[in-house]
């Protein structure tokens, strides 16, 4: 979030990325673990930088590297000026020599996730709608107004059920556990199945309505939320699905500190993806590490 609104909101940096380099965006949680050509190449680059504990530590940051895997620079600072300095230094080291294209010799299936055939991808975006204390801190302001992004995957059988006017319990549970979350300040804690107190989703014609109650056992995090949306189908397929969840959230998580005090309004939009957005191919955050747990 911070990166998009600071580093990558800088015109000079964006112009540089559009013309001077080949830009790639990854969740390094995958690449530092996967035992395949993709992971090997990433680790070759990252191992030359300051963060190379691939077993237990993050390697997150901004890297520059040659196509042959030579490390050219790194920063984990989000200040545009610090990033520009790293890019300048990296370009001084870069030599445009001939390099062979690497090929995919093997893929690690544990970390190669693809959306279910015949299913749906739905864009999910959350925003805290109020409750923050006013601040002059620009970084805090970015978090306070952030719009998050994740994808909901719907299986082929669930797709068929929706098109037939039934809302599958499996899908209601997946939405509740993995997508009714506050991910506006970072990686959120997902809900355990035992923390889904109640879900009630129904389809009537083109209208989708629902309600969910979520709470940890200790009560340190909760969300009471209503959902309303509309569906359009053609020839047994869902071709339009817009939905909103709006309710009262409480609490935060280890990586989402800084939530408003007390209960606060959190709204989440759901929009059927058409494949034209740069993030439509990204696997759901909740599928990371255990796809079967997300999509049985």
């Amino acid at each position, binding site marked *: 979030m911070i990166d998009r609104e600071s580093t990558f909101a800088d015109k000079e940096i964006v112009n540089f990325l559009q013309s*001077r380099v080949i830009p*790639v965006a990854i969740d390094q949680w995958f690449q530092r673990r996967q035992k395949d050509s993709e992971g090997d190449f990433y680790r070759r680059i990252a191992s030359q930088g300051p963060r190379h504990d691939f077993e237990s530590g993050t390697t997150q940051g901004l*890297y520059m*590297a040659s196509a042959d895997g030579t490390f050219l620079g790194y920063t984990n600072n989000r200040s545009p000026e610090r990033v520009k300095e790293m890019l300048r230094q990296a370009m001084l080291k870069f030599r445009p020599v001939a390099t062979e294209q690497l090929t*995919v010799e093997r893929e690690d299936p544990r970390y190669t996730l693809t959306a279910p055939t015949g299913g749906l991808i739905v864009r999910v975006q959350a925003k805290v709608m109020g409750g923050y204390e006013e601040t002059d801190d620009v970084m805090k302001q970015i978090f306070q107004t952030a719009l998050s992004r994740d994808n909901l995957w719907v299986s082929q059988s669930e797709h068929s059920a929706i098109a037939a006017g039934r809302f599958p319990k499996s899908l209601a549970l997946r939405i509740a556990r993995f997508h009714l979350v506050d991910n506006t300040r970072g990686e959120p804690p997902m809900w355990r199945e035992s923390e889904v107190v109640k879900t009630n989703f129904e389809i009537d014609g083109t209208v989708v309505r629902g309600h969910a109650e979520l709470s940890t056992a200790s009560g340190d995090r909760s969300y009471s939320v209503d959902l309303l949306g509309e569906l359009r189908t053609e020839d047994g397929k869902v071709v339009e699905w817009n939905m909103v969840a709006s309710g009262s959230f409480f609490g935060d998580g280890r990586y989402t500190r800084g939530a408003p005090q007390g209960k606060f309004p959190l709204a989440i939009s759901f929009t059927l993806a058409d494949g034209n957005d740069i993030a439509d*191919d990204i696997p759901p*955050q909740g599928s990371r590490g255990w796809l079967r747990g997300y999509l049985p």
Partner: protein
Amino acid sequence: MSRTLICAAALFAFFHLAAVPAADLAEEEFRQLHAELQPAKDALWRTVPWKTSVLDAQQVAAVEKKPLFIWAMDGHPLGCT
């Protein structure tokens, strides 16, 4: 459209919505929130031609003789974080 048809459409919509259990989210609020919770299409970071595989990026970088820029985060940077 005739007045009869308009009345029929209104009655259909009324009974159609009334058949679904009530929720506290009104249709007008749903439409307003859904529009508000969409990304700005002109956001600068979205104009960068991001790839999502370092191997794919390497293959292009090798041909174009350019370096790679890797935005590596915890959680996908085009998504969650």
